């Protein structure tokens, strides 16, 4: 058998744009694994999650950092969450599944999504141009997340800090997504 090797080329890798004091970057090696809570097995799943990550699966619309800080749990729906962590190799789902021991259904979502981190004092002013969610710090506190639509694209927006947001969107439309975010900053700066 010939030696073939596969090279990883995530869609937004290397993105680093600056608009004044704001910055748009693509986090490297971001892994995402979805969790589905089995019907009737929600409590057991919650326990297993708490045990595995040292933190409970948060309420819907919230994220929570694992006890060791390496992982973030996102709660997207009544029976659905995401585990988000930095992990380079294409086996994130196995890593999470192993921790949960079958208490929740897991699906690798790493390649389904692409991510952008936007930071800086004018972030909210820029995101206002595409995001229908109220991102006022009182309404959307640090750790809050929302799944919504921006410029015809599905997006999960997470507030990671006062002036920092992480945006997740479908990987196939990554270029259009970046264009939408970039244009928003260009239009307000």
């Amino acid at each position, binding site marked *: 058998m010939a030696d073939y090797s596969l090279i990883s080329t995530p869609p937004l890798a290397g993105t680093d744009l600056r608009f004044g004091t704001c910055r748009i970057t693509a986090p490297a090696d971001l892994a995402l694994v979805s969790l589905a809570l089995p019907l009737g097995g929600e409590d057991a799943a919650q326990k297993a999650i708490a045990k595995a990550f040292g933190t409970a699966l948060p309420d819907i619309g919230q994220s929570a950092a694992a006890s060791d800080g390496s992982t973030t749990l996102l709660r997207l*729906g*009544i029976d*659905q969450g995401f585990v988000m962590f930095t992990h380079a190799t294409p086996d994130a789902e196995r890593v999470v599944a192993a921790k949960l021991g079958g208490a929740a259904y897991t699906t690798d979502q790493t390649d389904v999504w692409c991510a952008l981190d936007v930071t800086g004092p004018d972030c909210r002013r820029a995101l206002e141009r595409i995001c229908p969610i109220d991102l006022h710090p009182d309404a959307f506190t640090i750790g809050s997340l929302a799944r919504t639509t921006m410029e015809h694209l599905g997006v999960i927006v997470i507030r990671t800090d006062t002036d920092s947001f992480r945006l997740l969107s479908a990987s196939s439309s990554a270029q259009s997504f970046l264009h939408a975010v970039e244009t928003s900053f260009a239009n307000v700066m």
Partner: protein
Amino acid sequence: MIINHPLLGPRDAAEFVYLGDASLIDRPDWQDPDAAEKFYEYGYLRDNPAGQHQELWYHEQGDRSWLVVTRDTLSHEITKVELARDVAKARGRDK
């Protein structure tokens, strides 16, 4: 329009996809002796009220939940929003 999602709070209706009358939850039994008639009525006949209407909305650009929204078709006022799965269960669709 704004739909006050029971889990997520107010969201623009643009995030949702509309299906129709919440009677679509009440899918008839295929083995009912009147199945043909019942499926016809289920599939085709609507109360279409001018007033309070229970209807199905899907939060496609959100948490993917189906909701039963009680909305006035004259004023668009929304008086109740429930998770469709809860409504379905309450209507005995737990099989």
